[in-house]
């Protein structure tokens, strides 16, 4: 067994997390290796130093302060959402207004064109309507090789 593997196993063993099947080979290595025995002693001392380390107490007001800030955050988000929804109202009004104006303009234009058309019909000015297949743009002489016969 290599020392680096043995040292990893020592750490696991001190944490009571080493699988039983590795214990025997680790003990065998430790019996033969003074460097790993020293490592075990150092790790034991390190563990006990950390276990006795004092940790500062958390100020009791921090808990309630964080909850207050979270509630304030919710309020801010709710308010901004409401403002966003309020912004929708003028946008919707603008859309409806443009639809209404567009409809009015359309009706007015339609009425004026139909009125002028009916005025033309009543005055006898009719437009000639080309029937299907009739060519009104090209002169007939074009098809007759340029002669008028």
């Amino acid at each position, binding site marked *: 067994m290599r020392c680096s593997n043995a040292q990893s196993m020592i750490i696991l063993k001190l944490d009571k997390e080493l699988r039983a099947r590795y214990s025997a080979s680790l003990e065998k290595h430790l019996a033969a290796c003074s460097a790993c025995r020293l490592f075990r002693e150092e*790790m034991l001392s390190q563990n006990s130093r950390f276990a006795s380390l004092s940790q*500062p107490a958390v100020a009791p007001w921090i808990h309630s302060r964080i909850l207050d800030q979270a509630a304030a*955050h919710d309020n801010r988000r709710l308010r901004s959402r409401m403002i966003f929804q309020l912004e929708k109202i003028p946008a919707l009004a603008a859309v409806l207004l443009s639809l209404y104006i567009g409809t009015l303009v359309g009706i007015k234009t339609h009425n004026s064109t139909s009125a002028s058309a009916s005025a033309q019909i009543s005055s006898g000015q009719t437009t000639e309507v080309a029937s299907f297949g009739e060519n009104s743009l090209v002169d007939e002489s074009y098809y007759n090789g340029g002669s008028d016969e």
Partner: protein
Amino acid sequence: MSKDRFEEFLTANEKRIYHYIWALTHHEADAQDVVQATFIAFYEHIDGIEESSAVSYLYRIAHNKSITHIKQRGRYVQTDPVLFANLPDKPAPAPDQDYTPLHAAIASLPVKLATVIQLQYFESLSYKQISAQLGISVKAVESLCVRAKKLLRKKLLKVSSD
């Protein structure tokens, strides 16, 4: 994670996060500021956080917030000429009395290793419990723990030799 569970989550984690931040900032008032900022940042994104990785995520936020805070503290400029003349060479405030080289060694570890060490040394959690807290496998916890303790040993040996 749902917002309803935030208070319970806060109660379960505020102490350990405070200790971690305190180890990074060396200062009680700074740690109090940063712990609040950490939990609020967590709360802002709580809807998108998986329950299984919430503690890891919280440690990551705490680490980043602490580093940002330390950098900002270093950038603080004193404009009063009298105070400026009496400024110490190092801008960082003096560490609290309880702060020891052991805390400094933990603070110098990468966030994942420091998290595992915190949970193992100070809360005496088993590897299985740590894996459940952090949402990682027991094998990963084993590996992190071994790496962290070897690194701590090296750092402490260096400190004692200095």
